[in-house]
């Protein structure tokens, strides 16, 4: 009996204070959620009801904003984003998984220095690299090319992927690899026959995080793409500045552009902290 009580030290605080703290938590939480909720609400309204002051709580429901999103050609921007995000994620996995292997199960010499190097590249400000990237792409006539953008997205998230995958691979017992080596398996075989299948959860989490970061990337996208290769965030900003007054329409576009990321975020929720903190927090 007594152990049960000991397990809940916080029951000491009075019921009233617990209740008020919970209410406060809900208040703060809803405050943070409100902009998202409001945007969702507005996106189902007609333009006339969206921009009123004071704002209306109840207005006729319509789906026309979402229909318009696809009519005005958001499709090609979403497609560009999909190519850049999925494409770069696949390349990242192909490069990062072997690297993480070399740095984890039977780590090579100086693996800590290599890891530190990868981490340090994440700290360099992208704005300082913008000019050279722009010049190189211009020289190669690759401006406004979605595949060129994809290559730079690989470079952006590769260090993070190495760190994340390494933290998963570290948990695998080295005996497993040693046994495969004794059987005469090559490195490639060990990687793709032995390690990939058992580290699928880690691979999934890593790819979702890379996907989210790439999908949201803006600085590079807006400066090295034109109309042809523009990604969804670039398209969205165009909307804000040129048609900022069409709130209902803008809200619908925001929701559509955010949807893939929300879904990916849902699937990766356990590992998101790890990704955001560059692997420092699990």
């Amino acid at each position, binding site marked *: 009996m007594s152990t049960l009580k000991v397990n809940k*030290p*916080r029951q000491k*605080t009075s019921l009233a204070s617990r209740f008020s*703290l919970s209410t406060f*938590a*809900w208040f*703060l*939480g*809803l405050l*943070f*959620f409100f*902009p*998202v909720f409001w*945007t969702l609400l*507005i996106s189902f309204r007609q333009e006339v009801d969206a921009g009123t*002051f004071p704002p209306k709580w109840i207005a006729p429901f319509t789906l026309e904003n979402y229909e318009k999103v696809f009519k005005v050609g958001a499709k090609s921007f979403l497609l560009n984003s999909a190519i850049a995000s999925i494409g770069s994620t696949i390349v990242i996995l192909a*490069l990062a998984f*072997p*690297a993480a292997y*070399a740095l984890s199960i*039977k780590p*090579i*010499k100086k693996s800590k220095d290599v890891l*530190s190097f990868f981490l340090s*590249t994440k*700290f*360099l*400000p992208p*704005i*300082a*690299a*913008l*000019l*050279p990237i722009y*010049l190189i792409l211009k020289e190669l006539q690759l401006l406004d090319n979605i595949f060129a953008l994809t290559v730079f997205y690989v*470079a952006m998230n*590769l260090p993070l992927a190495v760190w994340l995958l390494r933290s998963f691979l570290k948990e695998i017992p080295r005996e497993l690899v040693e046994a495969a080596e004794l059987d005469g398996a090559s*490195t490639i075989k060990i990687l793709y026959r032995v390690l990939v299948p058992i580290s699928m959860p880690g691979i999934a989490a890593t790819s979702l995080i890379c996907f*989210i970061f790439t*999908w949201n990337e803006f*600085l590079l996208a807006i*400066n090295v793409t034109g109309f042809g290769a523009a990604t969804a965030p670039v398209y969205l900003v165009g909307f*804000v*500045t040129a048609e*900022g007054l069409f*709130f209902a329409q*803008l*809200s619908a576009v*925001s*929701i559509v552009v*955010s949807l893939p*990321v*929300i879904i990916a*975020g849902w699937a990766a929720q356990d590992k*998101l*902290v790890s990704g*955001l*903190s560059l692997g*420092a*927090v699990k």
Partner: protein
Amino acid sequence: MTTIADRKIANRRRRLPLYPALIFTIILTQIPFLVTLGISLFHWNIMYPDDTRFAWFENFQTVAADEAMRAAIKNSVVLTTGVVFFSTLLGLLLALLLDRKFRGRALLRVLVWKHIIFNPMYGIVNGFATQIYQKFGGDSVVVIDFISQRPLVAIAVPMIWQWTPFMMLIILAGLQSQPPDILEAAAVDGASSRQIFRSMTLPHLRQYIQLSIVLGTIYIIQSMDFVFTITQGGPGSDSTIIPYQIYLTLFRKYEFGEAAAAGVIVIILTIILSSFAFRLIRNLLETEK
């Protein structure tokens, strides 16, 4: 019997899987920075190609004397400090609240953090912020036109909104990594919940709070998205920040040399900041072992 030569071959074979990623990263991340460093020593405006020449540190002098760049540095410091401070404070508060048991906690947690991945800058917040500000400014119903009168506040508010959940997530992870048996032992020994918080939880949280501050600073000082869409640095240069000013120097003034020099300054600042981040991340990784 393994000879030294054998072991060398084995070592080389073990390093092999690392090379593609390492070489790729070196080429794509280091070369641009070297190029930036090089360009920063040249006088180079794309509109006057004939006037391109080696200029030593002239660009750095120009940048240091530039009023707009000075304003940008000041704004960057103010904005970053403010946003980091308030979002860490709010994040800590939310983390502590959400670490307690109450009805609907799981749902609330999801509601709070989900929006950080919500295409944070462009999508929802921006639309929402622009909408609110235009409403408050345009129709003269409310007196303050935030965007022109308090541009930094107008940018800071949505940024705090965006970054608080990030801080919360890291601090929450710290809270949950506290060994529960020690807390229980303290409670059994008669420590009040306030005592437990002060002398056990807070010290344990310290490195997580530090991490969220340092990482937040590095991310926030680099992000120019809200400035780009909400104020465009205006009015005048009241809300311009370093990355946005570099962007303007590049694509409005076409002063490539000056932009590169400003870039080099940013790199140096970030290296100082990230050396802190570095130590923190390594410490956390060590303690986890």
